[in-house]
């Protein structure tokens, strides 16, 4: 099958029952995390044709021809996006396992709503479970990233 991942066009051999999560990890996109495998936690979130989805509940073959962005595709070399910078700054990353999914989800959401309130962000993150932070600092990180982008 053919996909474009983080701007790089590539051919994959996949099994018919393989999830997009498994195919991505097998192709070294290991920033996409395996946690629940049932679309409950958001740790495997990737952007497929402009929309953040849980890659654990989508078959790889469904992404035929799609353009996919993973967390690895956000930074340009050493230069982090404002969202990644904001997450790195205030201690909003603890174990880090949910963070790629949060960063991807929040990045995608800001493309649709550039002026979110704290409440908006708390609702966007309903699909991103975190067991470490209590969500306060990650939500603050997104708000800071918004402020940074506005500046």
């Amino acid at each position, binding site marked *: 099958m053919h996909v474009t991942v983080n701007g790089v066009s590539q051919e994959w051999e996949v*099994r018919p029952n393989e999830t997009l999560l498994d195919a991505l990890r097998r192709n*070294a996109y*290991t*920033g*996409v*995390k*395996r*946690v*629940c*495998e*049932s679309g*409950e*936690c958001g*740790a495997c979130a990737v952007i497929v044709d402009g929309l953040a989805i849980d890659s654990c509940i989508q078959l790889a073959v469904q992404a035929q021809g799609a353009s996919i962005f*993973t*967390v*690895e595709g*956000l*930074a340009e070399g050493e230069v*982090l996006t404002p969202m*990644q*910078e904001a*997450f*790195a*700054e*205030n*201690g*909003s*990353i*603890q*174990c*880090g*396992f*949910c*963070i*790629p999914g949060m*960063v991807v989800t929040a990045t995608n959401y800001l493309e649709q709503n550039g002026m979110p309130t704290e409440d908006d*962000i*708390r*609702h966007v*993150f*309903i699909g*991103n*479970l*975190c*067991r*470490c*932070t*209590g*969500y*306060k*600092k*990650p*939500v603050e990180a997104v708000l800071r990233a918004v402020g940074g982008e506005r500046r």
Partner: protein
Amino acid sequence: MKTELTVIGTRARKVDAVKHATGRAAFTDDIEMRGLLHTKLVKGSYPHARVVSIDTTAARAVPGVVDIITHADVPRIPYTSAGQSWPEPSPYDMYILDSKVRFVGDPVAAVAAETPEIAREAVALVRVEYEPLPAVLDMHDAMSADAPRIHDEPESYGMFDAARNVAAHIDVEIGDVERGLAEADLVLEREYSVQYQQHTCLEPHVTICFLDEDLRLVVRTSTQIPYHCRRMLAFALDIPVRNVHVIKPRVGGGFGNKQEVVTEPIAAVLALRTGRPVKLEFTRTEEFTIARNRHPQHLRLRSGFKRDGSITANALYVLTNTGPYGTHALTVTGNTGTKPLPLYRTPNMKFYADIVYTNLPISGAFRGYGAPQGFFAMEVHMDEAAGKLGLDPLEFRRQNHIRKGDTDLMSAAAGEGSGKKPRVMHSCGLPECIDRGAQAIDWYEKRGKPGSGTLRRGVGMCILMQGSGVAGDELAAAALKMNEDASFNLMVGSADIGTGSDTTLCQVAAEVLGVPVENIIISSGDTDHISFDYGAYASSTAYITGTCVLKAAEDARQQIVAVAGRMMEEDPEGLLVHDCKVTSLNGKSVTLQQVALECLYGQEKTLVIGKGTHATKESPPPFVAMFAEVEVDIETGVIHPIHIVSAVDVGRALNPDICEGQVEGAVAQGLGYALTEEIKVGPDGRVLNPTFMDYKIFCSADMPKLTTILVEAEEPTGPFGAKSVAEIAINGPAPAISNAVHDALGIRLRSLPMTPDKVLAALDARERETAGAGAATRERT
């Protein structure tokens, strides 16, 4: 030495933040291994059964199956999975694989295959014949005369009374509780119950084992205890410690569930047998069913009080369900008593407990380590006592809480490990915690104003203490070497499992060595490095390993100033190390880089290596005053937490971002424990809710407003005055919310989680009671 701190106390960026924000490969399963085999487990389908036979013929015939192991293929060596110091104070009652199933899901065989799919297919073809046995599915039945014996095998040892299914037992008394109760004006006796809680680390248990080019067993594993893991694995496999090399990559959450040797032994056996890399990774269902949980308990408190609010006696009995194995059985329940009981000045105290085996899921270490259970009971109990004495519960606590200079005798009587001795409080910031917390929640304004209508409001509070490491049972060793560019490699044995300890330890080293945090390159949790550590548990790393790194950095600093002194022809005694240079009072200076080059290539020809080891019998408690404001819907029984204020005495906040994060995360887990989380087990011993859909942890939209206040009552025995922070706050939400619900509705909730049905049942019971009391009054008149 300079006195002003430049790195300690700052919100330094976490040293691992960028790699996580960019999703770089960092965790156990993020590497590529050529020829990796995938493991799937054959799991017992009865809560209690003997394995009569296992037929693997059909499974072995599946193309791509490389190996299958059963109990016949592993050493028959009893061990404990509890990652504790040697000899572990938990019974040796587990086997890598056994011919008996003691709970639903107990592994009986393991398949290694070329792909996970093949392994799964083969698992389905393994035929196991069982002889089902009667099971213990309620901890209250475990000790009864007709209960089936769960550990009847002769090899296991270290149980208190295996014939009665008692894994461990505690019985200590200080003073004379009966006399204390006789002297009391009020005797309050109440029972409390708490449930199984699952850690739900987002990264499941996962281990990759392989043999290196010298045929040593390399264990790349998601663990909190690299060094215990090395020792325990060598023991269980009956191979020398030197043949095991444990590497802890980044860990996606531990919370105690990875203070256990869980996936390592089976992966190791398969790697040794096949000579190929082998991975064993739990599925989410396996995390929920066969990993570890917080111990369920039934608690009974009997306490005596004087009219003036003083406490004459406090007796705690605990019945604990350890599940089929006694991992952390004694020590978790030990903390259920030794943490809450000494919080109140009481001349007479009793603490006794039975920790029993059942054929239910395995209990184990979980953040708080027995204290959440104990504090729920104690803090709801004290709140009720204060009310019955006509005292404000906050004033009652102010009057009775332990103070600086006091001695905790319970630690000496029932503490764990070799450090049993009275614990003197060198610092106690509780008064400030209570004052500032009360102000932040607006206690005096909001208390006792439930309002009317469907939604009622209330505020409640509790106080807490924990420890900083296991008193007398900790050792940390670290080494630090200086490079040409004034960077330093810091090797520690501790395990940063997301807590931020790598960052904090770098800050300690950077502060002493006068360099920015970026100059410290930390490597933690690799057993081939020059380091040692008991691991990330008991809130020990900042206090124990932090002091150890302080010593290592100080050792390196001494070597640096000696060389710099010779370079500048100055007395090393008066030299200052700061801003990447060494300066004298006469205004001379050399850069650290010059010193490093002089050491390595100049006249000195030496390597600056700082060494630190630290062990102590101290374990200073951090303290918390936690306040909760809730809104309760009296139609539905739903409790909405609105605001949680945590005022936390951390001694010194080495990094405020990290301290706040630990508190906020602990509060979130504590909220789940209080309100929504419970592993439910059916009558057949099966876990009924092994998914995030059916096991409800708090999500971002559920969270109340969080206010975290860091109080710094400097601890003289801690690094830069620091105590611990990681666990304590998890103890608070349950009692604070129960007490807030009482303020709102006048009902006492003594069973967790505080679900809507329990609220409605308590409201009904109160209504019946009021009606009954009314009838009784009429009868008398």
